[in-house]
Each structure stands twice: as structure tokens, then as C-alpha cells.
């Protein structure tokens, strides 16, 4: 149905409310990672069983987007019974229906066992993973099927935009956003209201202004934006409608990574549906505001997440950043005033206008109100997307929500801010997370990647990894970045190969300063952050690599060797079974031994040993 007025919309929404009293089975099949773990098969099994037993009148399956807890997918939530089952397989489905939906039983073996409390928990309120979160943006994912605009309307969607369009002036919207203190969630943390105001004020020769949603989520280890687009694309569109009205724009773009096919698919459908309902078009809800959105797919260039490079890419050009003497809010896409915000920011806009600026300000800190979504990944028990109020400490995120480090290993560092960020050591874990605090210790908020590292992660290797990533992604425009990062990468490769020299440390520091001073865009000026922060907090590891030729974490091949402690070895043969080169010899129940000349240092035996009998040691002198 096409809504020509706000009355049409209200009438349509009322008609939706009648049939939502069924028992809901929530399964996340509309997110890439859940699909990979077999959520689709589970959903199909439920559907088949419900049809077979004729339960369709009372039970309904909700195929939702990302529910956040990737580690325990596919998970199934039964709303009436208030039960969450983890790692469900298709063969578990008949039992779940019989015991928990038709009966009153809880299947213990499918409940989540909390790594912190060691208890099996029945629902999310009892799980430490969810307890400390505030799912302002992600919370709606479980209530809707992302491909259904009716679902979004049923939870109040588009009604905020409609209200704002009819009841507020653009100035009032700007005031509200300013009062809420919303800062850009893409990493920089620039005040959104100030950006919008400059764009609204900027002169445009033909009155054309653009709003763009940056969905080019290039930071490795970050997938918040993907989950929002996959799980709730309408919330981004609604935010953009409000933003376009506030700055006086009629054309919008979403620039999305081509690596996210499902996000593109959902967004395309969402835009089509919003157009046919009259939320996008030449005369939105008959109120006179015109706004349309186009999708542009990226082509695999990290630097295109930078504002000016992104706009060049939309224009069909090579994505190289330009100097910003003239800001993009004055001359951006096609030389017209342009507002660029990231996915999470746009989703926040709609929420702020819905709950009000005062309510929003109650969450988070004075300087950084609201919540932030992080992808908590790496060496962590509870991998997943977590949405936390700003100001929470890193320790709470990693050890309470994240459940700490798996396999009894020690925490070493957490990396935030992607390739431009830095590594934060144990002693700074009580730092409150907001835009300003993280910058103070040499890292940054970034778009929200949070990669946890344990004792088996080599910090020199991490610095090498990020630097070599940036070497490949530098667009080549500025000499400092093109040549400087390449030299930095060469030095780190050398240190990791055990060929580092004392002077390397000084050279790295010098290069780092040059990079920060003489690059045009943030890619170059922050490129040295990973190596500078690891050097600041983990200098001893650099020293060990250079002076002793030793990598304590067992990552840099050639700088360590695996050794079996004959006292601890029980001769279980678990190690020799997994060794791909058959380098481990030994009789059953007798201590085993590693043939160093055959060992490729893959670490499979180290992971397989249950008795801590395999250790990383200095390379022994080769006897010729």
C-alpha cells in the first residue's frame, strides 16, 4: 500500500497490530555468520515440524538478523517460554518442540554454560554476555525480519520520521541532535549536529545537497555495520530520511562494500519497499519532502572508507583522498555540500528522534553519550557483537561480557580502532571506553573492532601484520605514506625474521613521526599507530626479537622451537596424531620427542596437548 498521508500510515500500522500474539521462535538466519553455522537448516526443520504437527496457528518463526552472540549460533529463542537454546542442530528440533513448546521442560544440554559463572542459563537475562549490554540499536534485530517492512512498521518504524517531517522544522531537528550530543560512530567522533549545520548553511549553486551513508566497513575484524544493514536496514533508511530533511537534501547514497552481498540484498529490498510505501520518493507521505536513495557498491579498496576517496569512488573515479582545505560539507560529492555519516550513526539518528535527546543523553558519558557497538573477536570466549554504553571499562567488556580468554591462556593486549588504532595492555584495562580516553593512550575508538590477544599472540607480528596491510592499501598519492609505510613494513618483516638491528627501533620512531606529519588523509597519518603503541607498551618483545633472537609467543618462525617436557608428557600421542609432517616420535605412554629438522612450527601439537607438556623455547644452537 502507498501511504499518501500520515493518516494512511497510522491506519496501515493499526491493521498490522492484530495478529502478533503467537508464540515466537526467533532464529537468526538473516546474518552471514549465523547462516554459515547452519541456522537455515534449523529454521527449515522447525518449519517442517510445525507444518507436520499443525502448530502454525499458535507458533510463528521469526527469521531475524544478527542477535549478537556469534559464538553460540545457531541459537533459538522461544519467547513465550523465555528459553534460549544454543548451538542447535536440525536433529534437535523435534525434541525442542515436544519438550519445550508442547511440554514444559527445559533441555539442559542445549542451554548456554556461562564461562564466568560456570552455570547453565535459561535465558539472556541471566547471561553475563547480555547483562552489561545496552542494546539500543541492535535490540530491535530480534523483533523483526529484516526483509519485512511490515515487521519494522509494527515496532514503530518510520513513524518517528513521519512525525519529525510533519511536526519539526529542520532547525529543531538540528537542535535535538545537538542536545543529544551524538558523535560520528565511524571512528572520528565528530559532532553530527555541527556537520549537518555546516552542510545546511553551505552554498550550493543549484541547491543540490547529498547525504551519504558510509557502509564501507573495511577495518579487518569489524562487522558492526554489516550486522545493522543485514538485520535492520530500515533503521538506517529512516535515519537518512530525517537527516536529509534536516540538511535540505533530496538525494542520498549508501556506499557499501561488495564483500557484503547479503547486506546489499537486504538494503535493496528495503529501499524498494520504502519507495512503494511512500517513505522514499518525490513527495514523502504527502508532506512535500523529496528524497531518494541509491546504492553504490565498493570495489575493494580500504582507503574508500575515507570521505573524499569515497566520494571520488561514487563519481566513478579512482578512490584517492584529496586535501580538505575545503570541507566536504561545503564541496563534497560532485562539488556539492555533502553529509557523510556511517551506518551506526544513521541508525542512532532514528533512535534519538524516537526516544528523545534527554533519554539518549542518560546513556553513556558526558562527552560521548549513547552506546557503541563493538565486534569482540580474537582470543575471547564469547565472540560476538556487543553494544555497550560509552564509559564502560575495557575490563568489563573483555572479562564480563566477553567471558575472558579461552583455553586458560593469559590476556596480553586488546587492539581497538582497526589498522589506525593501537594495542592496549593489561594495565590500562580499567580505562573507560569513549572517544577521548582511547585517543589519550595512543589508540582510538575507530569503527568498533576490538580484537583480543593472548600470550600466544606476538606483538611485533601484530605490528607487522597491520603495517603490511596498510602498505597494500595505501593509495600511493602521498610520498610519506607510499614509501614510509613500505619501509616500515620492511623493517618489521626483518625483525620478525630475526634479522633486526638495534637502530631499527629509532628508525621506526622517526618514520612514525614523519608519517603523522606529512600524509594527507588519516590512513597515512595514523599508519604508524599499531607499531608505535606496541613499541610503547611491549618494547621488551621487540628487544627479545632483536637481541636474543627469541619470539616468546611462538609466532615468528625461526625465533623459537617447540619442546616436549619429558616430565609432563604422558605419551598420549595426541600431538603426533595432529602433526602434519610426522615430526613427533615416541612410544605410547613414553615421553615423545620433536624432530626439530622436520618441525614446521605450525603449533598444532601445542594446541592439542592437554598436559601443558609442550613449551616454546629459545632456538637451540645448531651443532654442525
Amino acid at each position: 500500500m502507498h501511504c499518501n498521508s500520515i493518516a494512511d500510515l497510522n491506519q496501515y500500522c493499526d491493521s498490522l497490530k492484530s495478529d502478533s500474539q503467537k508464540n515466537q521462535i526467533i532464529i537468526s538466519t538473516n546474518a552471514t555468520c549465523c547462516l554459515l553455522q547452519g541456522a537455515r537448516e534449523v529454521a527449515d526443520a522447525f518449519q517442517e515440524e510445525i507444518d507436520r504437527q499443525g502448530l502454525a496457528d499458535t507458533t510463528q518463526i521469526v527469521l531475524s538478523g544478527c542477535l549478537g552472540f556469534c559464538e553460540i549460533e545457531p541459537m533459538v529463542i522461544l519467547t513465550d517460554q523465555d528459553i534460549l537454546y544454543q548451538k542447535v542442530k536440525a536433529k534437535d528440533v523435534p525434541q525442542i518442540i515436544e519438550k519445550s513448546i508442547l511440554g514444559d521442560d527445559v533441555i539442559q544440554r542445549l542451554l548456554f554454560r556461562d564461562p564466568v559463572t560456570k552455570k547453565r542459563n535459561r535465558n539472556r537475562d541471566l547471561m553475563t554476555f547480555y547483562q552489561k549490554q545496552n542494546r539500543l540499536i541492535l535490540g530491535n534485530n530480534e523483533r523483526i525480519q529484516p526483509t519485512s517492512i511490515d515487521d519494522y512498521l509494527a515496532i514503530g518504524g518510520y513513524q518517528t520520521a513521519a512525525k519529525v517531517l510533519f511536526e519539526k522544522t529542520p532547525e529543531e531537528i538540528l537542535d535535538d541532535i545537538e542536545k543529544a550530543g551524538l558523535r560520528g560512530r565511524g571512528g572520528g567522533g565528530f559532532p553530527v549536529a555541527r556537520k549537518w549545520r555546516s552542510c545546511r548553511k553551505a552554498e550550493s549553486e543549484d541547491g543540490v545537497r547529498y547525504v551519504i551513508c558510509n557502509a564501507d566497513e573495511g577495518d579487518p575484524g569489524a562487522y558492526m555495520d554489516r550486522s545493522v544493514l543485514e538485520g535492520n536496514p530500515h533503521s538506517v533508511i529512516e535515519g537518512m530520511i530525517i537527516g536529509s530533511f534536516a540538511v535540505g537534501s533530496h538525494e542520498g547514497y549508501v556506499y557499501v562494500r561488495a564483500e557484503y552481498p547479503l547486506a546489499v540484498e537486504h538494503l535493496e529490498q528495503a529501499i524498494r519497499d520504502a519507495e512503494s510505501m511512500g517513505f522514499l520518493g518525490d513527495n514523502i507521505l504527502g508532506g512535500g519532502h523529496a528524497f531518494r536513495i541509491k546504492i553504490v557498491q565498493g570495489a575493494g579498496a580500504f582507503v574508500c572508507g575515507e570521505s573524499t576517496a569515497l566520494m571520488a569512488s561514487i563519481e566513478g573515479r579512482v578512490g584517492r583522498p584529496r586535501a580538505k582545505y575545503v570541507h566536504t560539507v561545503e564541496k563534497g560529492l560532485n562539488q556539492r555540500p555533502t553529509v557523510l555519516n556511517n551506518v551506526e550513526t544513521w541508525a542512532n539518528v532514528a533512535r534519538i528522534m524516537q526516544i528523545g535527546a534527554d533519554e539518549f543523553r542518560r546513556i553513556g558519558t558526558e562527552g560521548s553519550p549513547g552506546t557503541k557497538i563493538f565486534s569482540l573477536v580474537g582470543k575471547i570466549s564469547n565472540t560476538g557483537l556487543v553494544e555497550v554504553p560509552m564509559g564502560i571499562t575495557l575490563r568489563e567488556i573483555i572479562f564480563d561480557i566477553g567471558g575472558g580468554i579461552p583455553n586458560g591462556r593469559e590476556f596480553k593486549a586488546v587492539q581497538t580502532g582497526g589498522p589506525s588504532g593501537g594495542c592496549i595492555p593489561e594495565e590500562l584495562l580499567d580505562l573507560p571506553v569513549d572517544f577521548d580516553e582511547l585517543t589519550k593512550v595512543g589508540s582510538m575508538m575507530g569503527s568498533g573492532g576490538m580484537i583480543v590477544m593472548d600470550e600466544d599472540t606476538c606483538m611485533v607480528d601484530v605490528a607487522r601484520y597491520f603495517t603490511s596491510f596498510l602498505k597494500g592499501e595505501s593509495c600511493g598519492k602521498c610520498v610519506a605514506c607510499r614509501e614510509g609505510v613500505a619501509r616500515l613494513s620492511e623493517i618489521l618483516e626483518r625483525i620478525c625474521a630475526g634479522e633486526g638491528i638495534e637502530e631499527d627501533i629509532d628508525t621506526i620512531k622517526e618514520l612514525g613521526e614523519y608519517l603523522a606529519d606529512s600524509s594527507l588523509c588519516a590512513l597515512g597519518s595514523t599508519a604508524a599507530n599499531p607499531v608505535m603503541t606496541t613499541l610503547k607498551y611491549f618494547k621488551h618483545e621487540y628487544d627479545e626479537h632483536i637481541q636474543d633472537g627469541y619470539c616468546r609467543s611462538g609466532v615468528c618462525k625461526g625465533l623459537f622451537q617447540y619442546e616436549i617436557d619429558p616430565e609432563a608428557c604422558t605419551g598420549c600421542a595426541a600431538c603426533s596424531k595432529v602433526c602434519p609432517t610426522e615430526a613427533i616420535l615416541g612410544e605410547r605412554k613414553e615421553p615423545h620427542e620433536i624432530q626439530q629438522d622436520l618441525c614446521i612450527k605450525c603449533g598444532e601439537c601445542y594446541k592439542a596437548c592437554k598436559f601443558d607438556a609442550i613449551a616454546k623455547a629459545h632456538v637451540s644452537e645448531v651443532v654442525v
Partner: protein
Amino acid sequence: MTETKDGKRGSVLVVGAGIAGVQAAMDLAESGFKVHLVERNPSIGGAMVQLDKTFPTNDCSMCIVSPKLVEASRHNNIELHTYTEVESFSGSAGAFQVTLREKARSVDADKCTGCGNCVAACPVRQVVRVQDIFELEPNEETRAVDEIIDGSGTNREALIHILQRVNATFGYLPEDAIRRVALRLSLSFAEVYGTVSFYKSFSLEPKGEHIIQVCMGTACHVRGAAGVLEEFENRLSVEAGGTTDDGKFTIETVNCLGACALGPIVVVDGEYHGNMSLSKVSGVIDTYAKRAS
């Protein structure tokens, strides 16, 4: 113009203000000759200013050439004649008579500061440019390109989208297809080629039957993706980015697939394999080696 002892005149005409012409003009001017530097294009610098680096030292080409251009334009002994062509010349060494045609620039070169405001203000955007492309005999590739362009229009904005579709059709971008795109969009071949080589998702070479993508995101990296990649490379005897000799497999790396809970992760022909370890690699290869593409 000064007459020398033997009746020869002391001024020199240098035709073409590329790097060679500019250098020659400067050397002559430094030796005390009056130099007329003629260039057909509106600006001096020639081809070298379009290059990124120079062989064999990989020096930045603009860093070498731009100071020379500035010097040439300011030198008292050099008179620039840009946008000018040589019509005819006569005479013999020492006393040539040359006729130059200076094309109408419609701008007072003495007053122009090169601020660029006029370019921005000009309402005519469609610049007619010299095409370095030729009409190709229609073949399978150009026909596929035409079909895609007919659906998307010939705006510059559509370039990347068109290239993505062509890349998806052939698995890579054949040269004929790139030439056809350039012709249809009124862009130079170099411009389209530059765009193709900038973005990672375009390939200039055909790929294997099965494409193995190893995720190198940070989360996968700390969980040992480098080892998994190495194992694939060793087992297939080909480095990342390359294709096996029998054309069966191509190994690629991707920056992040955003499925970090399953790291290290490998995608073969769009099918995901999570929690990879070295021991699983051979199994994955065997599965696809048996399967037809």
C-alpha cells in the same frame, strides 16, 4: 636578436616542451642563448608529468619534472609559446625563418593566475577529447560489454558498476572489454585501466576453476590464518594471487569477511569453511579437486 661574428643569429627554437625539450631549452638558456620553446598543448611537461614513477630508480616523476617546469617558465632567456604549432620553416643553419601559429586561447596569458575558477564555472562539462582507442571488431567480449552498458547508461558515475558486472561475467576484465568500456563512456583507455588497477576486486587475468579465498582479517590472523594460507600455497604449489598450472585453483586473500567467530575462515566458490586448521586444508582441496566447476 644578436648577430654573432660569423653572421649567425643567437636564438634557438626548441619544438616540443616535454621533459627533453624543457631540459634542452634550459641548458641552452643557461649557456646564454635566447630560446623559443614551442609546445602544441596548452601546457608544458609532456608525457612525463603523467607518470607515477621513473625507471629504474622508482623515483617520483613529478618530483623530478615539476621544478624544471617552473624554472623553464620563469627563465629570462626562455620564451614560451604554448598552444602553438610550427607552420613552416625555411633558410639554413644559423638563419632559419620559422612561422608559428598560436591558437586562440581566449585568455590573456599575462593576467591569468591559473586559479581554476573559470574551469569550475564553465557550464559545458562534456569535454571532447582525443581518443586513443579504436573501434574494435565486435566479438563476444564487446557484445557482453554493450549489453551491460545499455542497461546502465554511459555516465562516468556508472564506470565502476559496469566494470564490476563485466568482471563478474568473465571472471576477469579482458583487454577488449576494457577498450570497449572506454570507447562507450568517452574515457581514455588509460583512465579506465587506471581505475581497474586501483581497485582490488578487478582482475586482469583469468582465474582458476575454483577460487580459494583465505580471510586475512585481524581476528583470523591472531587465530593462525597465515599458517592456513601457507599450507594452501604449499599444497597447491602456487602463491596467493596466482593460479595453479592446471587452471584448477586460484588462491586469493581477502581483508575481512566479517565472520570473525569462525576464524580462521576460508571461502571456496562462495562456500564457507570455518575454524580452519592446517590438518583440514588437504581435505578442502580434495573436495573441490573432484568437483567440476
